[in-house]
Each structure stands twice: as structure tokens, then as C-alpha cells.
């Protein structure tokens, strides 16, 4: 039987060992936080400053496109920004262009209502889900009250006190979108451009590069990239919560990925060299 050298052994490690290592790398910092430093992205600070400068009582639309795939990255953003908006007594209208996002919109409204003692219909309301994705956003922009004529319970929107006098998308002072596909870009296209309503994008980390051209051109007033954006916003609010707690664990998981790439590449190169020496 051929004697295996260390590089051959390393390059054939069982995947299950890596899975176990990953679990350990994630769980340990969750139980014992490492207190690693955190930077605040400029585009997240821009979002914070924009909201901070909003007049009290502004009407704001939250498009909650969160789903189980994006929840870990955008849910903490939604909670943090909701708290900031309500500290400025903004009136919040929640909706979703993602069929799976409506329960998240309902839950966000419920959490904020409980925390701030809000009255449904007066301070906050949920318009629910409308199908069509970009077409639904275009429908919101074109004739808001035709498409969103009833809230998620079926009550006529015209009877909600907070929406009395609101007749079009242009009446909103800000739109914050929590990513579902390219939803923030849809809002920038159909509402931000034509109606000049500012848009802030809460996005996944992997979508942040796609948001940058719109941030640079002024279509977005701010971008929150993934869990870092959420944690940075919590830091700016001086209220660390879910996003901050998960950062250390995320970092350790990423360290394992990098070590895997490095060791895997080194093992392959050294193993090939050892083989050619033997030959």
C-alpha cells in the first residue's frame, strides 16, 4: 500500500470534519462573544443621516420584501430603521411585493406597535402584498389608491386616518425597501425617478455591489449592506441587537472559509510537487 504523505492526507479530508469545525467556529463566539471591532459603511451612515433629517411626522413607506433567505441580513435592518423612524414620530405604511414577505410586514408592524404603543391606522398600517413584482411597484407609482385600495385585513384604505389626503406615491417622504430580487431598483425606477421620492435600500451583502451605481448617481440616499449594515445602524442608534450579536460568529465562519481556501490550495500544490519529485 502506498505511503500517504501529509499533503495527500490534507487534500482528502472528510467533508463532515469541515462541517463539524464550522459548527464549532460559529457556536463558540455566539456563546462567548469576542468583541471584535466594527466599521460603519459610509452608505449606511448616509441612510441614518437622511432619516435623522426627516421632519417629524413624515409619511414613510416600508417595502418589506424579506423572506427566509434574506431574513438573517435584512430583518435586523428593518427593526433598527423602524425604531429610528418612530423616534421621529414618522407614520409608517408597510407593504410587500414578495408573497412570502407579507407575514414579515405584519410581524414588523406588530413588534413596532407593541414597543412604541402605536395605534393601527393612525400611526402605522399594513397594506399587504400585491402580486406582479415590478408591475406592482409601477402600479403603486401610477395610481396608488387603485391598487392599494384595501389593507391586509380588507379594510378600505381611504378610511385609515393616517392616509386621509394621501392620493399618490409622491405624498410619501421616503421609501425604504428591504430587498426582494431587485425591488429597490424597481422603486428607484418607478417612484424615485418620476415622483422624486427618496429611496433607501436595505440589501443583502451580495447585492451591495449592484446597488452602488444607484447610490453613486443619487437614486438611493443610502444603502445598508447585509448584516454589517444592520449592525452599523444598531451602533449608530446606540442600541445593539440581533445584527451586532451575530457579527463575531459570522467572522469566525468566514475565517474558516479562508483557511479552507488557503490550506486546500497549499495542499494541492505541495502534493503535486511531492508527486513529481517521487516520479
Amino acid at each position: 500500500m502506498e505511503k500517504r504523505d501529509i499533503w495527500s492526507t490534507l487534500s482528502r479530508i472528510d467533508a463532515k470534519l469541515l462541517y463539524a469545525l464550522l459548527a464549532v467556529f460559529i457556536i463558540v463566539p455566539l456563546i462567548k462573544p469576542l468583541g471584535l471591532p466594527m466599521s460603519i459603511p459610509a452608505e449606511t451612515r448616509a441612510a441614518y443621516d437622511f432619516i435623522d433629517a426627516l421632519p417629524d411626522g413624515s409619511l414613510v413607506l416600508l417595502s418589506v420584501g424579506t423572506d427566509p433567505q434574506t431574513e438573517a441580513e435584512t430583518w435586523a435592518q428593518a427593526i433598527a430603521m423602524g425604531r429610528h423612524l418612530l423616534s421621529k414620530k414618522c407614520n409608517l405604511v408597510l407593504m410587500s411585493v414578495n408573497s412570502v414577505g407579507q407575514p414579515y410586514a405584519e410581524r414588523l408592524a406588530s413588534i413596532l406597535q407593541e414597543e412604541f404603543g402605536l395605534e393601527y391606522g393612525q400611526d402605522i398600517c399594513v397594506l399587504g402584498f400585491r402580486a406582479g413584482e415590478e408591475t406592482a411597484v409601477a402600479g403603486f407609482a401610477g395610481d396608488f389608491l387603485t391598487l392599494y385600495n384595501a389593507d391586509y385585513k380588507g379594510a378600505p384604505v381611504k378610511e385609515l386616518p393616517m392616509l386621509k389626503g394621501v392620493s399618490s406615491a409622491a405624498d410619501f417622504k421616503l421609501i425604504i425597501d428591504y430587498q426582494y430580487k431587485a425591488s429597490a431598483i424597481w422603486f428607484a425606477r418607478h417612484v424615485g425617478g418620476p415622483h422624486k421620492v427618496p429611496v433607501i435600500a436595505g440589501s443583502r451583502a451580495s447585492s451591495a455591489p449592484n446597488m452602488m451605481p444607484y447610490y453613486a448617481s443619487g437614486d438611493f440616499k443610502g444603502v445598508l449592506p447585509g448584516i454589517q449594515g444592520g449592525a452599523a445602524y444598531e451602533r449608530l442608534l446606540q442600541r445593539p441587537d440581533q445584527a451586532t450579536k451575530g457579527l463575531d460568529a459570522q467572522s469566525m465562519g468566514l475565517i474558516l472559509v479562508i483557511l479552507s481556501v488557503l490550506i486546500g490550495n497549499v495542499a494541492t500544490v505541495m502534493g503535486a510537487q511531492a508527486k513529481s519529485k517521487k516520479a
Partner: protein
Amino acid sequence: MFIRKQLPVLVGFVGGIIVLGGFFLTDPSLRKAASTVVSWRTTLAAFALVLGAMNLVKVNWNRASAGKPIDRLAGLALLVPLVIMVVIGLTSGTTAKVYAYMYDNVYRSGAATVFSLNAFFVVSAAYRAFRIRNAHAALFMVAGLIAVLGPASIGAYLWGQLPVIADWVLKVPSMGATRGFEIGLALGIVSMGARTLLGIERGYFGGE
């Protein structure tokens, strides 16, 4: 025949032209008509959502009716909660306790876990498959490593300049390429929209 080929294209053309007219022209009644057509499109999208789910029911009903025991069990495992959700949702609304519990504890937990499984496979792939073989791959890998470490808190801990470098990569070279990509994409969208309007592009009809 007319219903299969020409009528769908004609109906699409009329609807699309009204929406396009509402965008380019300022006539209030045309804009109102365009908004109405767009809202009709969203209504059809809602029907499409229901259609998709009903197709799921149809496929799994066939599975649950015949086949190996595990396939039948899997088919039932899909149909039973689906029916429960529909009955409760349509009678008591999405805020009903049982509806919310099933959504949170069955769907949310399961779906989030499926996506999180990728993390394990990423580590395994990083070890076995991520190899630098040429200049393009090297650049790809370096940018990837910067994206992984820079924004993460470990990056700032290892080297204070890493977040600064990551920010520069995101907002300069990457942004430039993405902007070029977005402009190219816009040209593609305009071209595709025009082709769809004129009935040249008919892939979305599906088969037959």
C-alpha cells in the same frame, strides 16, 4: 391558428401600447388608462400565483396517489399542510394563530435552514475546489477574499486598512464594472421590451 398565435400578441400589443403611451404622453385620460392596464396585469399576476400553487397540488396529488411508499408520504407531507394553510387563511386570515405558527415554525425554519445549508457546502468547496489557475481566477479570488474579510469585524481586527480597501474595491473598480453592466442591461431590457411588445419574442408563452 388565430387564438394560439395572433390573438395573444394582439392583446399584448394593445395593452403594452396603452402603458407606453401613458409613459411618454401627458394626456390624463391616457395615463389613467395606463394605470388601469398595469393594475389588471397585477390581478393576472395574482391568478398566476394561484395557478402555480395549484399546479404544485396537481403534481403532488399524482405522487400521493401512486408510486413508492416514500413518494406517497412525501406527496402527502406537502398536500396536508397546504390544505390546512388554505382553509385557515381564507376563513380566518393570515393573522390567525395556527396560520402564523405554521408559517413561522414550519416554513420559516425549514426554508431558512435549507439556504443556510449552503454555508457547509461553501466550506467544503472552498477546501476542495476553489483553485487559482489563471490571472482572471486570481483576481476573482482576491476580490472575493477582500469582500469576505473587509466588511466583517474580523477584517478590521486583523488589519485596520482592510475595511478601507474593501470599500475602495466596492466603490471604484467593482462599481465601474457594475455600472457598465447596468447600462448594458438597460439596453437589453429596452430591446426585449420592444420585441415582446411587437410579438417577436414569444418564449414566455411556454410550450404548445
